[in-house]
């Protein structure tokens, strides 16, 4: 069977999450480069997953809701990553899903041998399913052992298997709650985080006994300004990081996020083949960058013709490992990247420029609270405050190009005046002029 790809689901969910139901079916399908029929099929499949994953109690309420509505980011429910269900999309045969769940359930309370498990599986099987043979059970056990869900107990043959959940079962109730909180806080504040969110879900089940006594035990911590769609791109990380780790090039099909099409169906029938706007390419991956300003991921690598190349992770589809390169060659390119990105505000590898900015503290603020300065110190990366006076302070930074830092400076509004370089100063003036013109008619209405 061909390797199952989730590119379509990822692009689908991204578009749905970002545009929050702005498009109708036709518009949506067109932007994804798929047919309306495929759109409907994909939507049905994703809805099915969401509804199955949701707690049975919530099922009836959620069943009638539109998927877009479900995905709509609720500010005050931000601890649950709404898009996590993507990672539950791997298909599984009905019979296999039955068997695996039986095996795990049987091992809940005791350690068992393959033979004992076979007996239990056969006796608990719904009549419409064919009973598994020992070979099948052994291969299931091997799978469960490979993913670390079960482990062999001490002692020789025949092996007894048990669930590997010691990180929970060896803890006291209080310690389990501490673990749950820690996993939740780290999954919500660190990247990559999908594994953490999955672990959080496992722990939720482990701590279920708390539900009765403390109905809102899971609802104590909130996180604000989260970019929820960031976890979609984490789907690519395993293959990308594995390639970096093994000095391997990557093959992929890239759709620039600026093009109106963000995915294209891989039709096997050439008669239906559409002209795609993406292009296939190969590069040596060197690093993954997460941008906190937008919650987006970049893949930075070395391309044989184009040199250092930065691609938005969301534009990458059909990623596959390719040829391996010499470790020395890889190291040389990594060093080159490290040197070039030393002064990147984000990923710009252009010429370094010294930017000097005058910041004005908020009018009327006492000496105790200067949120402008706090923000500059918090977000100004490696830049420094070089002078401090009563009414202003000077901030300096050497940064590659002025494009990436400009939005940040502009976000300070009138609390910021660019002194150098002149070109950035001019640009800021022009932008403020245009913005003023844009809002000028407002004055009359106020």
């Amino acid at each position, binding site marked *: 069977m061909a390797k199952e790809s989730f590119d379509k689901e990822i692009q689908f969910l991204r578009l749905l999450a970002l545009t929050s139901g702005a498009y109708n079916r036709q518009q949506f399908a067109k932007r994804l480069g798929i047919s309306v029929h495929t759109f409907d099929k994909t939507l049905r499949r994703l809805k099915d997953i969401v509804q199955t994953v949701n707690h049975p109690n919530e099922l009836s309420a959620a069943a009638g809701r539109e998927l877009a509505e479900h995905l709509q980011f609720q500010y005050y429910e931000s601890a649950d990553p709404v898009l996590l269900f993507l990672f539950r999309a791997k298909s599984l045969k009905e019979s296999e899903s039955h068997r695996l769940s039986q095996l795990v359930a049987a091992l809940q309370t005791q350690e068992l041998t393959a033979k004992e498990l076979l007996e239990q599986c056969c006796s608990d099987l719904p009549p419409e399913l064919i009973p598994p043979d020992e070979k099948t059970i052994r291969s299931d056990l091997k799978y469960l052992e490979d993913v670390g869900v079960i482990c062999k107990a001490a002692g020789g043959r025949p092996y007894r298997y048990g669930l590997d959940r010691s990180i929970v079962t060896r803890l006291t109730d209080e310690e389990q709650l501490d*673990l749950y909180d*820690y996993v939740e806080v780290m999954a919500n504040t660190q990247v990559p985080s999908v594994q953490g969110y*999955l672990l959080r879900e496992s722990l939720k089940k482990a701590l279920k006994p708390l539900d009765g006594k403390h109905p809102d035990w899971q609802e104590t911590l909130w996180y604000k300004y989260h970019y929820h769609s960031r976890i979609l791109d984490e789907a690519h990380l395993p293959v990308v990081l594995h390639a970096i780790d093994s000095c391997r090039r990557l093959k992929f099909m890239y759709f620039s996020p600026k093009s109106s099409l963000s995915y294209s169906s891989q039709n096997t029938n050439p008669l239906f083949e559409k002209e795609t706007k993406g292009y296939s390419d190969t590069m040596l991956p060197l690093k993954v960058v997460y*941008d906190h300003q937008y919650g987006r991921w970049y893949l930075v690598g070395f391309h044989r013709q184009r040199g250092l190349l930065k691609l938005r992770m969301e534009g990458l589809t059909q990623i596959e490992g390719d040829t391996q390169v010499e470790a020395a060659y890889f190291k040389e390119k990594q060093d080159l990247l490290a040197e070039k990105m030393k002064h990147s505000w984000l990923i710009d590898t252009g010429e370094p420029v010294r930017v000097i900015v005058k910041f004005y503290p908020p009018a009327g603020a006492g000496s105790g609270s200067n949120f402008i300065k706090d923000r500059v110190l918090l977000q100004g990366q490696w830049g420094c405050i070089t002078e401090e006076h009563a009414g202003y302070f000077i901030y300096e930074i050497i940064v590659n190009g002025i494009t990436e830092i400009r939005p940040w400076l502009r976000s300070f509004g009138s609390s910021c005046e660019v002194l150098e370089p002149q070109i950035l100063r001019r640009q800021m003036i022009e932008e403020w002029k245009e913005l003023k013109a844009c809002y000028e008619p407002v004055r009359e209405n106020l």
Partner: protein
Amino acid sequence: MNLFEKIFNYQLHSRLDESGAYTITSHERSWLKAMLEHSAADDAFDSGTLEKLRGLLAGEADSHLFRYVEEKAGSIPKRIYHPLLRTLRRMIMNRQGVRVSYQLRNGEQWENRQGFPYKLEYSMVKREWYLIWYPFRERSLMMTKLAHIRAVEEISMPPDKAKHMIQHIADMLLQRKQRAVIEVIPAYNAELSRILYAFSCFEKEVAYNDSTNTYRIALAFPGHEAEFVLSKIRFLGLRVRVAEGDYFKHRMLEAATKALARYGDESV
């Protein structure tokens, strides 16, 4: 390693749920092992627990997830796990009241204020934990930085009163919600993805007008976040304009006028 594992499959997941079973894979354990190396772990566990967990994970493979990932343009990470988190989270879970001693923004000290703790909130931008609580004397909702709290003490609260408080606070938060509509300037539609990403940290609805090829983003946010919303609008510059929300329009005009004044004659 693959994030799309059979064991995570949704049907299997729901079957396991029915039988009250759960599983933990080595992916999850490797991630946790890496996380326990973080200094935040010292604030999150008693030292005995931390040692126990590290011991249990010692045989797990090291995760290479973090080795090649670099975070850029974020706020400097401060203390991620505040030591009071554990105490306060339990008070909230137990629906108990709290007595708080803390420092106000202007430096003034408040001692033993009684109130009801509602939630703990972490801001990814300010990298601070806040206690959202309702002091009984002031009768208004407060967001107090955990960093400013010196001491907390649990006070008992009858379940009925706690239930009433929770509802009351939820209503107050709902009432504080504000709305603004941002329009994407059609000339920048090619940058739509960037713009939508920038607003994806808010509760929002997007409307698309096919005939004018215009996108409008309706944002909903708590009133005290207006400054943050404004900074996002300024961040995006000419790509967007405020279509609805007089306060925001006014503030944008004010920012542009004052900014130009800073540049003096050059801006004429």
